[in-house]
């Protein structure tokens, strides 16, 4: 049996100011599986995604494809887990869109030809191929959202952790984003308030409230579970 793409056990995390953002969270995601992460504002979704990439140091254990996340194998973890931030302005910082999308592949040590190939491919997939010379800070918000996704697609990760990928997209772009995500073969964890997308994209859903997982299961079943949904303030 192959190791799960993600295995999180008994994860607990407090921010320095004392806020308990994760409280005994355990979760497993199979390779190629797509899981929706639902929950009210402040439920701890973004924090959980950060921990997958070793960006916060929680109590408990996180394993990616069988490799425990720890200070020693961070480069390896970051090659395997692509994380797209909720706010695209946090993700984009290079002088041009091209450089931003090339940042990850270059850190992987790929040759310039391969970097170019991946950048073009990634920008093409998010439909921004014509803007590659534009400074990322001059893109529209929705374009930035898609650009942010391209910056990790170009790294071809095994696990993709997305924080609200469809927020601020116009209807067509939202549809295309969902269609694009469906074509990916990597494991996908999508934190979102877009319940429609969760239903369409993710066979499984996990509901968080106040740092804990309060429900998990087949998406349609979870969404129909009024009691859990109410507890998570999603109704």
């Amino acid at each position, binding site marked *: 049996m192959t190791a799960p793409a993600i295995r999180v056990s008994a994860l607990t995390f407090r921010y320095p100011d004392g806020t308990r953002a994760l409280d005994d969270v355990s979760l497993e995601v199979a390779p190629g599986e797509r899981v929706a992460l639902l929950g009210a504002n402040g439920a701890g979704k973004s924090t959980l995604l*950060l921990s997958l*990439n070793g*960006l916060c140091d929680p109590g408990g254990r996180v394993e990616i494809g069988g490799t425990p996340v720890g200070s020693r194998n*961070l*480069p390896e973890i*970051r*090659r395997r*887990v*692509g*994380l797209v*931030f909720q*706010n695209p*302005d*946090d*993700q984009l*910082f*290079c*002088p*041009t869109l091209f*450089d931003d999308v*090339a*940042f*990850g592949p*270059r*850190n*992987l*040590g790929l*040759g*310039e030809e391969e*970097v170019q190939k991946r950048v073009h491919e990634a920008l093409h997939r998010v439909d921004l191929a014509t803007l590659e*010379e534009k*400074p990322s*800070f001059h893109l529209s918000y929705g374009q930035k959202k898609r650009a942010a996704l391209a*910056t*990790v697609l170009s*790294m071809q990760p095994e696990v993709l952790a997305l924080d609200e990928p469809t927020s601020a997209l116009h209807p067509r772009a939202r549809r295309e984003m969902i269609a694009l995500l469906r074509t990916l073969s990597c494991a996908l964890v999508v934190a979102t308030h877009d319940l429609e997308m969760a239903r369409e994209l993710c066979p499984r859903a996990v509901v968080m409230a106040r740092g804990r997982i309060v429900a998990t299961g087949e998406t349609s079943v979870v969404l129909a579970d009024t009691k859990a949904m109410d507890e998570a303030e999603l109704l």
Partner: protein
Amino acid sequence: MHIAFDPRLRVAGPLQALDARCKVLAFFALVACAASVPAPSWRAPVAFLGAATLLLLVSRIPLGAALRRLLFLVPVVLALAAVVPFAKAAGGEKVALWTGGPMVPRQGLLVLWNVSSKALVGLLCAIILAGTTGVPRLLEAFERLCVPRVLVLTMSFIHRYAITMQEELARMKRARDARGWRGRWIWQAGTLGSMAGTLFLRSYERGERVWQAMLARGYRGKLIGPSSAPLRLLDVMFVVWMLAAGLAIRFLVR
């Protein structure tokens, strides 16, 4: 926005196409020659200024942007000029500033000219170098030229935070103005004060998150640019020309 940060200000041109490392070396050579001109000389600085101006024209950097950068020097030169009349020249010959004008020591004027022209040449070269290369490529060039790692990293952080702060400021201004702020009244100074504080905090926190996003994509303390093309003869020739021009002016112009 600073010319080196803003790709829109970067136009194609002959200098833009040169290898960044060679440009760094070439401009360094020119500035070093200019800086070593001994004080009594006044023709050599003119020649160096001419060379720098020529490079500026060739670079196709928008002149307005370059001139605005040069304004930095005005206060410095004025401060220097203010002390010139008091310069104690050994056996000082005095000259009139204009016919019938005040008498000042000739030696003092020469020193003023020497210092400010050197500063001008240095600044012009910095503007041309940054404007035709861009900060990321420049940092990479420094790194490859074995400038100490700490320095290169420090510069890259200044670059990153400068952009971040500018963006945050623009956002806050927009948010402020959208809510009908009019900065006319003195009692609204408090708004400005608290904005400054918030700007710092917001930039800091954003900087942290940007840093996280960089780590998430495998950043390990080294900005990796496109692996640069191999040096061409033209790149090397540029260094040689600049060095030759610098030495020629330095030693032949009297």
